[in-house]
Each structure stands twice: as C-alpha cells, then as structure tokens.
C-alpha cells in the first residue's frame, strides 16, 4: 500500500489532475508519437549529452532577457532549482521513456513555474527559443542529410508539445485551484448559523443552493445544534431567489436531520413566486413548518420555547397587578 505521506507534491498533483497511466498514453497518441519517432529521438542521445548545459543556458538566458522572466526568477533558490530540473528535462527528453515518472518531473517544474508566477506566454516563448537552439544543433549534425535532420527535429518536437500540454494543464490547474479554494471560502462564509437567543438558532440562506452547498448547510447546522443545545431553528430563505424540486428536497432533508437531533425547524421567507412554483411543482411540503416572514418565525420560535417578549412597560403593569 502506498502511504500518502510518501508521495511527492508532483505525484499528488498528478492524482488531483487525474493523470493516470492511460491518460498519459492517450497524450502520447494525441501528439502522434510513434516507434519511428522514438528511434530518431534516441539517435540524439549523444548530441544532447554533450550540449545539455549550453541548451539549458540558452533557455534561461532568454527568460532572464525578458522583464517578466527576470522578475519570476529573481529568487536564486527557485532559479537554481528550475535550472537543475530543466537540465534533467532535456536529458530525459531523449531517453524515450515518456511515462508516469517523466510526467511527474514535468509537473514538478510546472509547479515551480506557477509558484514563481512565471506567465505562460513567457514560458512558451523561452521554450520556443530552446527548440530553436536544439534544432540548430540537430541540423548541423545532419548536414549531409538535411531532410532526415528535419524529420528527427520534428520527432523531438512532438515530445516538446507533449511536455507543453502537460505543463500548460498543470499551470492552469494550479491557477484554478486558487479559484476553487476561494469558492469554498465564499460558500462557507455564506452559511452562518447564528445563535440569537438561548437555544434558538437562526440560519439565513442567501443565494443559490446546490447539492454541495446544501450538504454543508446541513452539516454546519447539525454541529451548531449540538454545540449550542438548540431546540428551535429558524431557517430564513428570503435570500433564495428560486427553488426547484432538488433544492426543496435538500431543505426537507435538512429539516428532517435537525428533527432527528431533537430540534424543530421553522422555515420563513418563502416569497409568493417561490410558494407558487413549489405548488406548481407538486412538492409535498407538509413536513415543513412554514411561516410567512422572519418576524413571525421568531415569534413562533419563542412560543415553542415557552418565551414571550414583553415591553418593560407591560412588565411593570403586570407585576403591579399581581401586587394589587
């Protein structure tokens, strides 16, 4: 069994992106890598071994020649590591083993770029520069047979595009990860459970309810019921613009779950449109205790808790009448 802790960040990213052995094989197929190509690429082994430092330098010189690239590689530790990985990349490129390990190495470099904030267009330009330099090397080697040299270069280019595909996907995925995290944060912020009285919770729901969010609402409500020993919950859905049958079922589930924990739920704020659409959809809402507005809901909650709101004046009068 593989211990999760032993996986490198690149392997974790690979798992998150769903890059499997099969997917990688598919990617090789997409760029058109064939047996022929592999044989040609293998013939570049010697050239690459003797010129790898030159090519690596060409790539980074081009990057640092651009303002954007220089900014991203300001950190010497990152620049050093990137150089190291790039060198490994060039050597691996001609080894013709484009498998899981190879992709993991590409991802490691991609994560480094994304951490350094290297823009894709800058990276692509530098990559193109690199291919140009390697192409020059190949052509000078195949001086006697330029057309074979061109074919060999095109074979290597397939690998290059295979790499670009992986790296672009990884950088985009990393960027979207931030978006996903922000979405989670927004979701969490938008479902507060508020205690407004001893044993009385208010759950205002605003916005769109999807399955994921409904689940989070239910979970946080149940936890709050336990934590604050709530007996009554007022769920206000004034801020929910539309309700379809799925959302209605989510609401019913939340109410049922709260009841299992001994809390009764009052639903308030069903607008006229929502109520009409629910009736039109034929959803059975008899399980729900609904009250028109939030004020009515809170009054009903107080009644359930055996409390009654009285003004100071009223209290003075009632206690005076008891004394009399």
């Amino acid at each position, binding site marked *: 069994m593989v211990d999760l802790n032993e996986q490198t960040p690149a392997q974790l990213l690979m798992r998150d992106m769903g890059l499997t052995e099969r997917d990688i094989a598919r990617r090789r197929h997409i760029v058109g890598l064939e047996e022929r190509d592999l044989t040609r690429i293998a013939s570049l082994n010697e050239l690459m071994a003797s010129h790898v430092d030159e090519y690596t330098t060409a790539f980074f010189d081009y990057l640092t020649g651009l303002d954007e690239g220089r900014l991203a590689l300001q950190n010497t530790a990152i620049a050093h590591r990137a150089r190291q990985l790039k060198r490994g990349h060039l050597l691996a490129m001609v080894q013709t083993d484009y498998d899981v390990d190879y992709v993991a190495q590409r991802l490691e470099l991609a994560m480094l770029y994304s951490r350094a904030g290297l823009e894709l267009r800058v990276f692509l330009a530098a990559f193109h520069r690199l291919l140009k330099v390697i192409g020059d090397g190949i052509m000078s080697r195949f001086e006697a047979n330029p057309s074979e040299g061109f074919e060999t270069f095109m074979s290597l280019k397939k690998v290059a595009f295979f790499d670009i595909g992986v790296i672009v996907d990884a950088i985009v995925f990393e960027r979207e990860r931030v978006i996903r995290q922000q979405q989670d944060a927004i979701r969490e912020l938008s479902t507060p459970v508020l205690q407004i009285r001893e044993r009385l919770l208010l759950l205002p729901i605003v916005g769109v309810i999807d399955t994921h969010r409904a689940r989070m609402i*239910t*979970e946080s409500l*149940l*936890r709050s*019921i*336990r934590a604050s*020993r*709530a*007996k009554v919950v007022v769920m206000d859905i004034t801020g929910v613009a539309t309700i379809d049958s799925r959302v209605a079922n989510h609401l019913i*589930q*939340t109410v*049922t*779950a*709260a*009841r*299992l*924990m*001994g*809390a009764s739920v009052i639903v308030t704020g069903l607008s006229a449109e929502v109520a009409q659409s629910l009736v039109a959809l034929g959803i059975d809402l008899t399980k729900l205790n609904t009250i028109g507005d939030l004020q009515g809901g809170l009054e009903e909650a107080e009644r359930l808790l055996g409390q009654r709101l009285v003004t100071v004046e009223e209290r003075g009068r009632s206690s005076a009448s008891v004394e009399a």
Partner: protein
Amino acid sequence: MDVPILKQGDVLIASIQAALSDQDLIALRDSLASRIGRFRSRGVIIDLMALDVLDSFATRMIRDIAYTARLRGAITVVVGIQPEVAFAMVQLGLSLEGIATALDLEEGLAHLSGRERKRAARS
C-alpha cells in the same frame, strides 16, 4: 450485548452503548415491551448517544419499539442522535416519523415531564 434498561420513576431508560446486532435489538424490543407493563411506565427513552451508525434495521426496530410502547400506554423519546448519524439517516431516506426526538437524556426527560404536566393540567 445486553442493553441495560434503567427505571427512573415512571420512565424506562435504555442506553445503547455499542453497535447492536439484530438479535440484540429484537431482545431490547421484547424486554422493553414487557417492562412497560410490569412497571406501569409512562415514558421510554432510547439513548443513542454512543452510536456512530444506525442502519435501516435498527431504525425499524426503534420505530417498532416506539409504536409498541404507545400501544402499551407509554411515550417514546429517542435522544442523542449524533450529527453525522442524523445526516447519514437523512441521506438514506430514514426518518423516525411520528416519534419524538430530543438532543440528549436531559432534554428527553424534560420532554416527558412536560407532557405529564400538560396531562395533569387537563384532568
């Protein structure tokens, strides 16, 4: 595993401490049914605080206990359902329809004594 059934005045308290086999649940149902008659109990509390899972058979047995108890003249309150358990039950479409629930043992007892008071006030 036998479930201990405690008698507290008019109320029988069955506190389930570990996951029960189907046989255990049937045994619990039978012994509660007979004790309600013997002790002339007016309330039954089933405490599920220690359970972290409740399957459909257990849910059905709890419902059976509640309905049996009602026919024998006692009200059943199910208490201590954990948030995770409640959520899982709802996902499975299980609910304790028509059975009183409360947060914990204390709440359950308060619910039963509240009912008693109302009954006394009526008579």
